[in-house]
């Protein structure tokens, strides 16, 4: 008798737990202003519409991917966001679930490059970030106009570089390498230039807030970084300008991915669908100056001036092949570490 009671109590508890977890999905976000925008544009409307609860874990792409991999046997995320192309590796390793394009109402409106392989497990891109030259317009003697300008010796003492662990850092480095004569098989020209910059007094930081600190307190003049963060710096009252390098504008794709082997895929797909909806993307563009990937998203006023959008503008952005990056990342990171190590 006692056993039966125990059994039924524990069964009820298990059921309750299952019901509770069906109403909750766990995602990662990138912290700071990004997370605030994420809440406002996607999470709050999603919770209001579905009655579900979204749990947020703050983790940058590389950390999030390491967690996803460590949890392979018992994944904890439902939707995971990457900005560094990690979805390609995740899909290959079976950590991400394939997405049927028909299950996302907004998938058909996405620009082609934003949905390269949904059926293979690579989630859709919901935002595109342009990279260029972020500089302090009051402090710098002559503003940079091209990526090659970063190598000017007079900038070196006030130049901020970003570590390769950071997606923007990696992409900015690849662009610098490319304009200096390197390519995706040879990053030595870029490494040599970085070495010269560091000898001239440039600093290396790993996270966005450190870039803000360098501009606000440490007399930084210029940093190769993203348009959205230039906007963040401007909002913080710094006289910062974002310029596109003459040689081209690399772009970073932020993707939303469905984690494999989770119980509530349906709810997670609804969440992803909201992220690629025009409303969410217009909101994101307004908050962060991210380029929308949904062609139905209409931008107006100052936002439209700051943000590339539409099929044509997005088509002109450069994208370094994520598969090549994934294949070389380990070797590049190691070479980079050796170059910057004191």
């Amino acid at each position, binding site marked *: 008798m006692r056993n039966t009671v125990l059994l039924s109590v524990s069964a009820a508890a298990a059921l309750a737990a299952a019901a509770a977890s069906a109403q909750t999905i766990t995602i990662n976000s990138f912290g700071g202003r990004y997370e605030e925008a994420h809440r406002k544009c996607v999470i709050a409307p999603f919770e209001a519409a579905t009655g579900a609860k979204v749990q947020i874990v703050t983790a940058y792409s590389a950390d999030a991917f390491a967690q996803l991999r460590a949890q392979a046997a018992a994944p904890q995320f439902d939707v995971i966001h990457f900005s560094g192309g990690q979805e390609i590796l995740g899909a290959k390793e079976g950590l991400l679930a394939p997405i049927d394009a028909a299950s996302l109402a907004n998938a058909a409106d996405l620009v082609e490059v934003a949905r390269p392989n949904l059926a293979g497990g690579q989630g859709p891109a919901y935002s595109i970030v342009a990279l260029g030259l972020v500089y302090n317009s009051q402090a710098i003697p002559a503003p940079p106009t091209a990526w090659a300008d970063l190598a000017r010796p007079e900038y070196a003492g006030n130049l901020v570089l970003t570590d390769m662990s950071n997606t923007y850092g990696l992409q900015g480095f690849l662009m610098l390498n490319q304009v200096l004569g390197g390519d995706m098989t040879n990053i030595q020209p870029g490494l040599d230039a970085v070495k010269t910059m560091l000898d001239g007094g440039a600093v290396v*930081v*790993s996270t966005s807030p450190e870039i803000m600190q360098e501009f606000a*307190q*440490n007399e930084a003049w210029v940093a190769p970084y993203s348009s959205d963060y230039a906007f963040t710096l401007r909002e913080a009252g710094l006289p910062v300008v974002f310029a596109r390098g003459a040689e081209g504008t690399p772009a970073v794709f932020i993707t939303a991915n469905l984690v494999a082997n989770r119980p509530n895929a349906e709810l997670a797909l609804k969440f992803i669908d909201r992220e690629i909806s025009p409303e969410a993307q217009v909101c994101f563009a307004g908050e962060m100056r991210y380029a929308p990937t949904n062609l139905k998203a209409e931008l107006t006023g100052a936002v439209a001036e700051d943000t590339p959008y539409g099929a044509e503008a997005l088509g002109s952005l450069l994208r370094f092949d994520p598969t090549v990056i994934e294949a070389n990342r*380990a070797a590049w990171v190691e070479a980079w*570490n050796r170059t910057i*190590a004191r």
Partner: protein
Amino acid sequence: MTDRQESALLLLPGLLLLAGAFLVPILQMLALSVAGPDGGWTLDHFRRFLGDGFYLAVLARTVRLSLVITAICLAVGFPMAYIMARARPRPRVWLIVLVILPLMTSVVVRTFGWMVLLSRSGLVSGLLRDFGLAPRNFALMYTETAIVIGMVQVLLPFMALSILGVILRIDPRIEEAARTMGCSFLRALAAVVLPLSLPGIVAGSLLVFTLSASSFVTPNLLGGPRVQVLAASVWRAVTQTLDWPFAAAQAVILFAGVLAILVPYIRIAGRGHG
């Protein structure tokens, strides 16, 4: 229930916790560090580390910094503990509160404080520049000195409190006897108090050394990406190059390196004492 059974019962939770939270992960780490690409086992990850000047330099820096941090903590912590021990109970309580107070804020917050002070336009670097002691672009941030400063602040309480516990148990009359026999204050300190407080010094140094060798947050934030220590290198291998066997090998080397220094230290210190 016999006494033996009772003690076994009392030990059980601790043993289970140790086995589950310590032994199993360590064994997994050991297994991963020799995992070959095709499921077999290999020593390649260790060969790669030990045959590469870059990683050896990271290891050397980790050990060197830990030794410097331990030495400074000892030099500051011993006099501090002595004064606390010989103070009257009321002031002693306040001194202990002062030592423990920094432990009440998170390491990250304290480290951010140092980042502000040590940065290029921060108070410390600015003062050094204003007095002409440093060049124009000088900053203490992102140097080994910054790591040492930050770590000493974090770890000093461990050293001071370990020594304090032992000095409190030394009978003050032994010291008085030494003074009556003609020892100067410093001589009494060196010849009587110091040797007697050796167990506390050993315990404190072990704590400080192991904590600084394995610490990650403070060195990573204050040293930046350019001044790497082993724990940060392990983290990089886990999150960026995604080379987990190599990360495990580095962790094993850190573990073995710490052991290699600790075991002789405990032996020598133990012999000297007893």
